[in-house]
Every structure is written in C-alpha cells, then in structure tokens.
C-alpha cells in the first residue's frame, strides 16, 4: 500500500474516531458511577440536531456547541430521574430516550426546515473547520513525519484536539480528585459511599451531567464539524460502537482512546476499500468492510478480550437495605 494512502486513511481514522471518543468518555463517567447508559446514541443524535439548528440560526459554532451540550445534559437528567430517583430499569430508560431522540429530531426537523428531516445548510461561520498548525506546509517535505504531521496531526478542527485533551483530563478527574474517587466507589459499592455519609443520588446525578456534557461534544462534532447540517439518524449506531469500545477498554480512559482509534481506523479502511479489489479474491462488496466494526463489536462483546469486569453496582438502582 502506498504510504500516502496509508496516511490519508490514518487522517480519516482520526476524524471518524472523534465522535466515538467523546461518547465513550461520556459513557465512562456514567458507567463508572454505576449507571448503564445505552442512551448515548440518543444523546449524540439529539445534540447533533440541537447544535445544527442553533448554529444555522445564529451562525455561531460555539452557540451550536452550547446547545448540543445543553440538550445532552437534559437527556442525561431525564435518564437520571428515571433510573436514580425513581429506580427504574436503566436499559429501558436508555432505549426509550434513544427512540425519543430518533423520532423528535425527524419531526422537529421536518416542521422547521421541511427537508425530510435535514436541517438547513449551516454557514461556514457556524461550523468548526480545520486548523492548520504552524509549520504544516514546511514539514510536508520531511519524509514520513512530514506528511503525518501535515495530514494527520494538523488540519483538524478544535473539537478533535479537545477530544484528545479530554482523555488525560478524564483520567485525572477519575484518579486524582475526590469527585473521581467517590464516583468510582459509587459504581462499585454504593453502600460504602452511603455509609461514609455521602449522597449516592447527588453523586450519580453529577456523573450523569458530565456524561451529558461530553456526549454534547460528540453530537456537535457530527453535525457542524464533520458535516454542515443535521441529517436523519446521522449518529447511525455510533453510540453503540462507543459503548463497545468502552467495554473493550475495560472502563479505563487511555484504553478507551485506543479502542476508539481502532474502530475509527476500521471505518476509514472500509471507506477506502469501496470499489477496490482484494488480491486473490477480487472485488468484494463494500458492505463486508462496512460490517467490520460491527463484527468486531460482536466478537469483543462475546468475551474475546479476557474478562471485562464491569463496575459491580452497574445497572442496579440503589436502595438502602432494611
């Protein structure tokens, strides 16, 4: 394979992994706090829609991001109200929110824009566009490192850099702060947190707010960084892939990043293989490559990654024992 092609696949892998990374980190916070969140998909979709609408209306990308984050936090709080306050089933609540997001974005999109669920084209000022890092052009001529710097590191939008910055920040919050210690504890044994005189409910709500915050970035990235409008069901299962990456990474920030990059790479590879012939086999339907991330997800979830020990109290509403 040509080196330039490889670099271009890598560049596209990074871009495709960003929504996964934000979403998986979002899931990391809620799941480490003991709240399963299958509703990541819905949060991503809703925030993609909200940020596209606001960016379209205001022409301001940051306003779009704010709207995306806001709506994702609202979804998180609804999930919290159902599963923390009312001790409902977390999976049911998450799935329900996914349906709400899928339905509502189409209905509202059609009502406001009349384009079959699409929003209007967001103007350039309302989008996050690529930033050329200093020296990218100069570096281009340097063998190997040059094209890598110019095409993979440089030229991404601000959200991409933020996504990678979120990895060490998440790690630091989880392992170096009081909030992180308590959050990890409440996902393992809420009884220990409760008897230490800390409110389990408030702690879990705060974790969900962080989840919403991060998921908002993911949705915003989809609609006003990667593209220039909201399109029907544009999250296309990425929320579930992110969940798989989270499990694959055993609920740890740095492995989460690596897992998301792997999924991003598979996705980019599938795009590249469109219409290409494989040696010995000939042309293969592109669907086979497109299916790769999903097949990998199944294989991983079936337990080929060793024992993935989820947070022990995950999925169980907390009630004080009688």
């Amino acid at each position, binding site marked *: 394979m040509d080196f330039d092609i490889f670099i271009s696949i890598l560049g596209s892998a990074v871009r495709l992994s960003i929504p996964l990374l934000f979403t998986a980190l979002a899931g990391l916070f809620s799941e480490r706090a003991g709240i399963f969140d299958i509703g990541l998909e819905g949060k991503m979709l809703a925030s993609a829609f909200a940020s596209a609408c606001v960016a379209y209306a205001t022409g301001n990308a940051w306003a779009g991001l704010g709207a995306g984050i806001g709506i994702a936090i609202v979804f998180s709080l609804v999930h919290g109200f159902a599963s923390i306050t009312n001790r409902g089933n977390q999976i049911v609540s998450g799935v329900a929110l996914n349906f709400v997001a899928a339905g509502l974005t189409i209905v509202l999109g059609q009502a406001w824009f009349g384009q079959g669920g699409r929003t209007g084209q967001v103007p350039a000022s309302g989008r996050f566009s690529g930033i050329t890092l200093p020296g990218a052009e100069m570096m281009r001529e340097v063998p190997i490192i040059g094209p890598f710097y110019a095409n993979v590191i440089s030229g991404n939008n601000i959200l991409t850099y933020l996504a990678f910055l979120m990895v060490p920040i998440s790690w630091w919050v989880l392992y170096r*702060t009081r909030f992180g210690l308590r959050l990890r504890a409440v996902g393992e044994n809420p009884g220990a947190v409760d008897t230490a*005189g800390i409110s389990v409910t408030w702690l879990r709500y705060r974790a969900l707010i962080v989840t919403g915050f991060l998921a908002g970035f993911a949705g915003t990235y989809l609609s006003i960084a990667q593209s220039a409008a909201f399109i029907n069901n544009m999250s296309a299962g990425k929320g579930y892939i992110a969940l798989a990456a989270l499990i694959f990474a055993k609920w740890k920030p740095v492995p989460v990043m690596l897992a998301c990059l792997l999924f991003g790479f598979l996705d980019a590879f599938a795009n590249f293989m469109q219409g290409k012939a494989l040696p010995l086999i000939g042309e293969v339907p592109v669907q086979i490559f497109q299916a790769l991330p999903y097949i990998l997800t199944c294989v991983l979830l079936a337990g080929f990654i060793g024992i993935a020990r989820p947070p022990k109290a995950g999925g169980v509403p907390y009630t004080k024992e009688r």
Partner: protein
Amino acid sequence: MSLDLQRETEPAIELVGIDKKFGAVHANKNINLTVAKGSIHGIIGENGAGKSTLMSILYGFYHADQGEIRISGKPVTIRDSQTAISSGIGMVHQHFMLVENFTVLENVMLGAEGGQLLRKGVASARRELKRLEDDYGLEVDPDAVIEELPVGSQQRVEILKALYRGAEILILDEPTGVLTPAEADHLFKVLRVLRDQGKTIILITHKLREIMAITDTVSVMRRGEMVATRKTAETTVEELAELMVGRRVLLRVEKGEANPGKVLLSVKNLTVKDSRGVTMVDDVSFDVRAGEIVGIAGVAGNGQSELLEAIAGIRKPASGEILIDGKSIAGSDPAALRELGLAHIPEDRHHMGLVLKFEEYENSILGYHRDQRYGRGAMLNLEAVRKDAEEKIAKYDIRPPNPRLRTANFSGGNQQKIVVAREIERDPNVLIIGQPTRGVDIGAIEFIHKRIIEMRDAGKAVLLVSVELDEIRSLSDRILVMFAGKVVGEKSGEAGEQTLGLMMAGIAA
C-alpha cells in the same frame, strides 16, 4: 474499683423511648438503653428482634418515629450517616461496606478525603493509618487491594475506617459471622485494646458464647423490645438464651446411642480440584453407615465444600469413587442422585439452596419439580404444590405461614427451614448437609438439630459438614477432621474441643 464506678456513671450513649414502625411491623418498641463509656456492651436477640433496626437508627439510616438519642449526655438528632459520623459513631456492618477493587487506603479515605484533590489527603491518611496500627495493633498494608485480603483483614479495614473518622463509639453488627475462630480471637483482642483505650463498643450478635467471652454488659432484645440488661459476669448462657427466645431452650442436643447398620455412603480415594485446577480434596476415603451421623470438622476452605459438591454431583471428581448404597454415582447429575435417595442441604442457601425471588411454595419443590405429585408433563399442578408447601410449613413451623410470600422476605432461620423441609421430607436414605445452622437463630437451630437426629434414628446415613465445632461435637457420632484437603484424623463424637482444634489447625493428627 473506683475506675469501674467512674465508667458506670458516665454513659456514652443513652437511648430513651426509641420507637420505630415499618408499616404494620413494629420493629422497635419504646427502647431504653444506656451504654457506659469505655465498656463493651453486647446486644443479643434472634433474627428479626430489632437489633439491626435500632443500630440503623443510631447510624442515621432510619429515623425513629419517637424517642431521643443522647451522646455523652447531650441530646443529638441524627439525620443521616454524616451526622452519626460527626457525633463520633462508627459502624462495622455485617456485610462490609468496602469497595473491593480499591486499596485499603482509598477505602479508608472515602468520604474523608481532606480536600478536592487526593494528593494531600493520601499522605495524611497514610500517617494516620500508621498511628492507628501502632496504637491498636490493627496492622493492614495500606496499599493492598481489598478483594485480595482475607475476610479478617477486610474487617480490620472497616474498623480502621471508623477510627479514622474519629469514632469514639464503635458498633459491630454480627462481626464474627464470616470469621474463622482464629480471626475472631484476633478481633476480640483488638476490641479489648480499644476498650482499654477508652472507646465504647457495641457488639450485636446472636452468638451467646461471644457475649460471654467479650462483653462487660449485655442487653437482650426480643420482638422489638429490650427485655433485659445484665452484667455479663452475673448471668449465664442458659438465662440469656431463655430471655432471647422467651422460653427454655436446649442448648445441647439430646440423643441416644447410635445404631450403625450397613454402609450407605462410601467415598473411596476421592480427589477433587477446583475451577483453577488446585487440588481441594486429596485422596479422601470414608464410609457413612445407616443410622449414624458423621461430622466433618475443619476451618472453612480446607476442602469441605468441594467434598460436599462432589458427593452431591455438582462438581466432577478428578479421581476416586463415590458409592451410594453400593452403586457408583459416576456420571450422575444431581437429579439422578435424588432418584438414588440422596438429599443435599447446601452450605449456602442463598447461592444454591433457594431462589430468593421465588415465592415460598416454588422453592419448596425446587429440584423435585419433575415429581408426578406436582404435575404431569410440562405443567405444574399448582394446587398440589401449594398444599404440599402448606403441610411443610405447618410441620416445620415456618413463619410467617404463607406459601405465597417471596422467599427473600423470610428470616434466615425460616429460609433454612424451607430448605431443610424440602430435603428431609423426601425421606432420603443418605442426607448430606453443609452448615445447617449458619445465620440461623437459636430457636431454629434447636429445631433443625432435632430433625437431623430424627433422620439418624430412622436409619438414614447423615454426613454433616460445619465450621461450628460445637455443632459438629453435639451432633456427630464420629468426627473426621479435614485439613488442607486431607482427612487428618477420626475421633469419636465425645472428642474434646482442644484435640479437634489442634487437628483442624494441622498441628496434631
């Protein structure tokens, strides 16, 4: 003497007229209790007597409907665990409140981190742990991960947690239920040191021996009421048992001579490995005859569980043979073994004996549901099943007598009776029993022991595994001691505690 008087005049805690109802259940009725500073005060009572509720009120888990709590003479309102902690109350729960994949240090710090960032708190927590270790002999490696520690050490972490938060009053809820005898002794040593340094300790238990061994004063609860308070030195086990149950209780089982007949259960050169491939039962051979009870003594984890599971057909032996009435059971599953006349009362009723979410009557036929009596083909005859359950409930005095109640809502003793009734009422020829009275109150213990003796007298072969040496000694006709997977010796049922204890520790044969 003057020191004693001093202690008596200064109460650490006073409870005045505490009253608590849960719906129709009157859990605590007008409780008055005074605990002297620097003493170990025992609270005993059967399961469901209201001990745990009372302590939960003291720790801020529940609010009393009425009554007052005074700490060092001052009335306090305990709104939540946070206020309990700041009032100087620490609690060691029966089921440890530890985060298992955290280190000791992280567990101790949780809730008392000393700031938004952990770094500063870690250093001071480390120093404080060292100090507590030096002062009270509570040694634990601060960097060890909880799940890799033995239970005894985990409990020490719970105590450290309370002391780290400045507890002056330490409540321990059934602290020895999960401990080996040696670990329990160590705990008692620690408690004495704590008392001698001025801490006040409240010990909740239903084990009379512990009360006699460690407490200064003891209060007895029965059905939500505080029925008596005694100085431990001035009371007896018999009196306390009677106060607890409300009637005279036989603490020692009465049984006649055994009349052993032919061999019904025979184990030959049995070797069993656990799931990691470690040999847990190592070349064990013994027989159990009709009309005798053979007890297997040993500290938990010396292969008894695996031995029971192999005989019950749950775990496949690595080598060796098990014969029931002369027939090899190789390749038989538990259902086939029931057909052969084997009944199994498993060690852990929650894990193996019952489905807690099922209603009582469903559990009363678990494993026997294919029986013609309970229906034909794929259908269950619920009418017949419930009638059968009601008969067992009446015969075994299972309370409350409601076959439609969820099993989780029965007390431990009554849950155990459900299992015992199910297995014994099938009239098996060979009965294997693990920990028949773990977490069961005295009244039910007496009942279950009588049933086991009756089985023996009816000419059945009984194999009994228990970590309670008293239980083994009072029931067994012969005692085998297991240590590190081997049977290290056989004694008659009259063998002394000391002799057996040494064998259990692997010191004597």
